[in-house]
Structures are given as structure tokens and as C-alpha cells.
């Protein structure tokens, strides 16, 4: 056993060093910045479009008195709703030819006017493309009504007593943690374990596989490769956990202490998160390594990537059944199925306080890691190294 572990360590050290000490690892480490930057750029554009869509601009053609009352009613409504999407009003003095003025205003692109409200408070008339926008019409009705009879009284006082948690908020927060953490685990595993697919290509194309296979069991090489990539991935995750925690500390008032707590508590949850990431990575990685080991070229690996990614999506969909109902038959089945088990159990950690199911789950998952590695190594020896007696099943049948 010691020799096995020592052999695996030799491979793991070589692979980890070759990965982390290469220039490309910097790009690997910075890779989350690219979607963040893209998200920032496209998110900014999207937000501007959304803001423009959410703030319909209505031109009010009236005398200044009517407009002042309408404007005051609008501010009251916006303040009560704490919603910036209330219509925005722009004042225009009436011109001699109202029809021509309306036409010009609606055609104007700067500012983009959705509708024109004319006729003052006495005979209001709305002109514009508002058939699919009942919210704007409704808001204007309310504003006109309030402007006609302004409420002079102050808003009714309502004493508010804030408490830290309520059962409703705890369940909501824990479900959110379960969902986000399961998604995070899924995406991290998809992005990181996919690298394992091509791990044996280098050895096979360099022919160094012969030297390694002559010196140690193939299982040890598989384990070494898996743990090397796991270590590189954990390094990647730790860097980004630190960056994320620092960002929350600086941006969010009260820092990370104000984050809602998962059912098992943050400390246990982080430990579980790392353990389940490791298990998920090892389970999928072992399967990928086995599949990738059959490939001879990078092209074959690329072709294999697509069905594997879709398979992962199906597994993620299966695992998602546990969110909100961690004790349902579906959730328990997903917890037993080895490839979805880590994601389901992490979601469970967010929603259920017991720790003992996690001990059973980790042992169960570790068993499957060992089984897949063992099976993968045997398959590699059989199909790639062409080792051992080879009897096809139909021949076995005919012999029997």
C-alpha cells in the first residue's frame, strides 16, 4: 500500500508541478475574470436597456400648474413603492397645433417618449404606443387621480421591529444557499474535471506511458493524476474563495458575518463543500480519465467532451431535485446515485443540520471513486496496453 501511495505521489507531484508551474496556469487562475468582465460589459448594456424599458417616459403637454401636481403625485408614488420603475414625466407647454406637437414628440428620439398626456387634469388624453403597456396606463390613472385630490395627511405611522431570523427567511436563505452552492459545485466540477479528459494524452503521445506502466500499477498512475488535478483545482478554488470573501468584506455592510447561515453552520459547510468538491471531482474525474484514456488524440478528446458535458447536465438536473425537499424519495435516490451524490449532499448540508448522513455519503462516494479508478485502470490495461487474457463474451458463452 505504501508503495502504491508513493508511486501515486510521484505522478501527482510531477503533474501538479507541470500544471502549476507553467505559464498557462496564470491564465487558468485568471479565467473567472473573463466571464466576469464579459458579464460586466454585457450586463451594463443589458441594465441600460432594462432601465430604459422600465422607465417609460411620458410627455405632459399642460400648463405648469397641472404638471407640478402630477409631478408631486409621481414622487409620492415612487417613494411609497421604493421602485424606480415608475413613469418619468417631462413637461412641454401646449402649442397651437396639438396634433402636430404630439406627432413631433412621439417621433423624437431624444428623449424617447412612450406617450403624450395632453388635456391637463381636467380632460386628460393619452396618445402613444401603450397598448401592450397596461402598467404605464394604470400608473398615469393613479397619478391623475392623486393630482386632482392631493392627500395632505402624512403617511400613517407603522412601528417596525426587526428580528435577525424568522422561519420563513431561514428556509428561504437555506434553499438559496443550497441552490447556489450546488450550482457552484456543478460548474466548478464541469470546468475543472474536464481537464482530466486529456491527462493521459501527453503520456501516450510521448510514449512515456511505457516507462510508467513498467514501474508502477496503472491504478497508482490514475490516482496520482486525479489528485494532481484535484490539488490544482483546490488551489484555484481557494484563491477565488479568498478573493470572494475579501470582496464581500469590502462591499457588503457587516462583511461575511452577515451572510445567512446554512443548516450545519458555515465552518462545517465549508469543510463539507471542499470534501464534496473533492469527491465530485474524483468521481467525475475518474470517469473522465477512464474515458479520456481510450483516446489517442486531442481531437478524439474534443469529440468526447460534448456528450460528457450533456451527461453532466442531466446529472445536475437529477441532483437539483433535492433542493427544497432533501428527504423526498427523489432526493434520496439522487444522494445514492454516486455521480450526483456530492451535489445533493452539499445541498442537504445547507438545509438539514444532521452531520451523520454526510459521513455515510463520503464513505459511499469514496468507495465509488476506488471502484471507478480500479475499473478504469483495468480497462486501460485491457484496451490500451492490450494486457491479459482477452475472451469476448460471446466466446465465453459458446465455451460454456
Amino acid at each position: 500500500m505504501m508503495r502504491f501511495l508513493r508511486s501515486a505521489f510521484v505522478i501527482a507531484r510531477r503533474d501538479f508541478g507541470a500544471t502549476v508551474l507553467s505559464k498557462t496556469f496564470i491564465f487558468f487562475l485568471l479565467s473567472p475574470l473573463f466571464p466576469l468582465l464579459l458579464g460586466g460589459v454585457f450586463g451594463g448594456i443589458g441594465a441600460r436597456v432594462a432601465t430604459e424599458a422600465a422607465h417609460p417616459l411620458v410627455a405632459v403637454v399642460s400648463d405648469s400648474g397641472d404638471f407640478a401636481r402630477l409631478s408631486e403625485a409621481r414622487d409620492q408614488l415612487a417613494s411609497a413603492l421604493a421602485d424606480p420603475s415608475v413613469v418619468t414625466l417631462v413637461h412641454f407647454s401646449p402649442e397651437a397645433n396639438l396634433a402636430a406637437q404630439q406627432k413631433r414628440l412621439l417621433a423624437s428620439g431624444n428623449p424617447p417618449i412612450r406617450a403624450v398626456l395632453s388635456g391637463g387634469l381636467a380632460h386628460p388624453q393619452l396618445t402613444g404606443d401603450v397598448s401592450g403597456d397596461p402598467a404605464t396606463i394604470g400608473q398615469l390613472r393613479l397619478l391623475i387621480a392623486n393630482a386632482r385630490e392631493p392627500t395632505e395627511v402624512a403617511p400613517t405611522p407603522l412601528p417596525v421591529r426587526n428580528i435577525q431570523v424568522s422561519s420563513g427567511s431561514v428556509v428561504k436563505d437555506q434553499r438559496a444557499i443550497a441552490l447556489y452552492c450546488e450550482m457552484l459545485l456543478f460548474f466548478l466540477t464541469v470546468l475543472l474535471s474536464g481537464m482530466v479528459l486529456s491527462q493521459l494524452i501527453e503520456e501516450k503521445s510521448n510514449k512515456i506511458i511505457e516507462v510508467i506502466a513498467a514501474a508502477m500499477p496503472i491504478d497508482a498512475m490514475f490516482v496520482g493524476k486525479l489528485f494532481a488535478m484535484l490539488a490544482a483545482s483546490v488551489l484555484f478554488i481557494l484563491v477565488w474563495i479568498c478573493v470572494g470573501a475579501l470582496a464581500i468584506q469590502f462591499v457588503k455592510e457587516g462583511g461575511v458575518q452577515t451572510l445567512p447561515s446554512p443548516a450545519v453552520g458555515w465552518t462545517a459547510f465549508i469543510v463539507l463543500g471542499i470534501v464534496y468538491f473533492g469527491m465530485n471531482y474524483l468521481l467525475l474525474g475518474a470517469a473522465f480519465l477512464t474515458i479520456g484514456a481510450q483516446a489517442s488524440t486531442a481531437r478524439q478528446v474534443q469529440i468526447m467532451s460534448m456528450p460528457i458535458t450533456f451527461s453532466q447536465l442531466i446529472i445536475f438536473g437529477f441532483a437539483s431535485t433535492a433542493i427544497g425537499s432533501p428527504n423526498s424519495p427523489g432526493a434520496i435516490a439522487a444522494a445514492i446515485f454516486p455521480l450526483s451524490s456530492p451535489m445533493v449532499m452539499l445541498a442537504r448540508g445547507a438545509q438539514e443540520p444532521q452531520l451523520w448522513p454526510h459521513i455515510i455519503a463520503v464513505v459511499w462516494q469514496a468507495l465509488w471513486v476506488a471502484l471507478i479508478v480500479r475499473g478504469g485502470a483495468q480497462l486501460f490495461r485491457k484496451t490500451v496496453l492490450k494486457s491479459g487474457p482477452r475472451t469476448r463474451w460471446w466466446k465465453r458463452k459458446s465455451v460454456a
Partner: protein
Amino acid sequence: MIRQPRIKSGDERIEDRLAVEAVDLVKDFDGTRAVDGVSLAVPPGSIYGLLGPNGAGKTTILRMLIGIIDPSSGTRQVLGHERPLEAAQEVGYLPEERGLYPAMHAREAIAFMGALRGLPIAEGRRRADALLAEHNLGEWAKKPIRTLSKGMAQTVQLLGTIIHKPRLIVLDEPFAGLDAINQGRLEELIRRETRAGVTVLFSTHVIAHAERLCESVAIIAKGKVAFDGRVDDARAKLSSIVRLRTRASDGPWRSAFPANARREGHEWVFELPAAGPEPLLKALIDGGAGIETLAIERPGLHDAFVAIAGSAAAEAMGQEKA
């Protein structure tokens, strides 16, 4: 003659055992029999050659012997271990298709190969420095493998094969791709390792190397062992060849020639008669043949190979040599 391998009991001293033993090894690949009942016995401390043309099954035999692949049937024992990987720390292996990580430094590559065989990495680096300096590659120690010439890279891999001081070195076509100077160096390295008590088992399709280095050989043809024994025993299977040039073209002295004597240009070529050279010389002198040149050639391993493995295999090897 195929020497019967001896599988000895575990309580014997390891020095008394054969370094490598194989009994009836068979390997099938998808219905094709690549190795067919091969039995070998490699004495410890010897240089043992596996001879045969490409495709004869040499590499498959070596891969089975060191545990890269399992045989379809048969047994093997390496340094007393029935499971070859258990002896991995005492075995060095140079595969036919050389392989190193291109980005790895020469020194690290050698230390890594030692680490694969259980040598601590720090000790591996220390030994690598010494070995590289000894082979005039000291200045390349911290250069990536991809910057080395093919010959240098092969030397680095060979040094990685012996870095952990193995008791058995297995080399698959070690001379392939080397120039004459490096081939000579490699031969010297093999001899030096053997003088230190190391067993060297290597495959080759170039008979000259085997003839210069090996005490014992196995001739492999079509997956079978056609001969297993000492090189001298292989040669002894053939008579010496007489090459004779005379001034007279014919005479009574011709009666001293065996029936299968033939003319090759101006020479007579025939096997030395069983009675030896003296009666032949007497007949030539007494008969007035007028001897211009007379050479008695001891048969080489190549001749023995032709006789043992058959002309088809020899032709295949001849093509490889060309």
C-alpha cells in the same frame, strides 16, 4: 536447444535464482497469436539478447516479462518475483519507443525516472548530475528535453533507466537511432553494468550487437523461441567454412572436397570436413593444387541465425539491416 527454465522455491538465496524465467508464455491480440509458448532462462549477471526480425514478438515478450502487460497464459518470474511489478524498484527499462516529457529538464527527467522506481527525488537529482557530467552532458542538466538532440535525449533516457542502480536492465532495441559512436558508448555502458553484477536483457534485430555483447541469446521467430542458449553453442551448430583459391583449376585433390562444395568467383567454398583441416591440406599439397589463399572461417551468429530461424526470418532481418 531450449534450456528448461527452473522455477525454484522461495527459500533459495536470490543470487542462486535465474534473473528472469519464463515458462510457456503465450500472448494473443484479438485472435492473433503474437507470442507462442516462449520459455526463457536468463542467468544473473549475464548479457542476454533476444534476437529476431521486427514483428517476431520480442517487444511483446519483454513487455510481458516486466509486467506492462499480462500474458494470455504462461508464467514468468523476475528477480524471484512472480509478479514483475513487485521487482520494479530493482529493474530498469528502456522501451523501444523512447519517451520523455519535452518540457522537463534533463536532470529532472532522470530524477523522475528514478522516483518512479522508488529513488528519493533529492538523491535522484544528485545522481543525475553525476551521470550527466560523466556522459559529457553536464551543461545540459537544466535544459528542457525538447532542446536536446535525439541522441542526447536517448542518452538521458538511458541514464534514467539506470539511475536507481537496478539489478536487471531491460532494453528494447537500445541501439536503434544511435550513431556509431553512441552505439559504441552504449555497448561499453552495458559491459560496465554487467561487470558490476547487473543482468542485462536486451532485444535487437541487429545481430552484430548481440554477437559482440551477449553470452546467451534467444532467437525468436514468429513468436516462438527457435534457439535459447550460449552464442558459442549457436555457432557450434554450424561447421566452419573453407574459402580456397588455387592456381590449378582441377585435379585429384578435388576428391578431398565435400560433395556440396561450390564455386564463388575464383574461390571454392565448402564446409570444413569433419576430419579437420590437416587431411584437406595434405590432399591439396600432394595433388599439386597450388594454394593461393586458404581461409577457414568460423560461422557467425548471423549464419547460425539463418540455420536456426530459417531463411525467411533471416531475409527479414537482412532487410531491416539494409
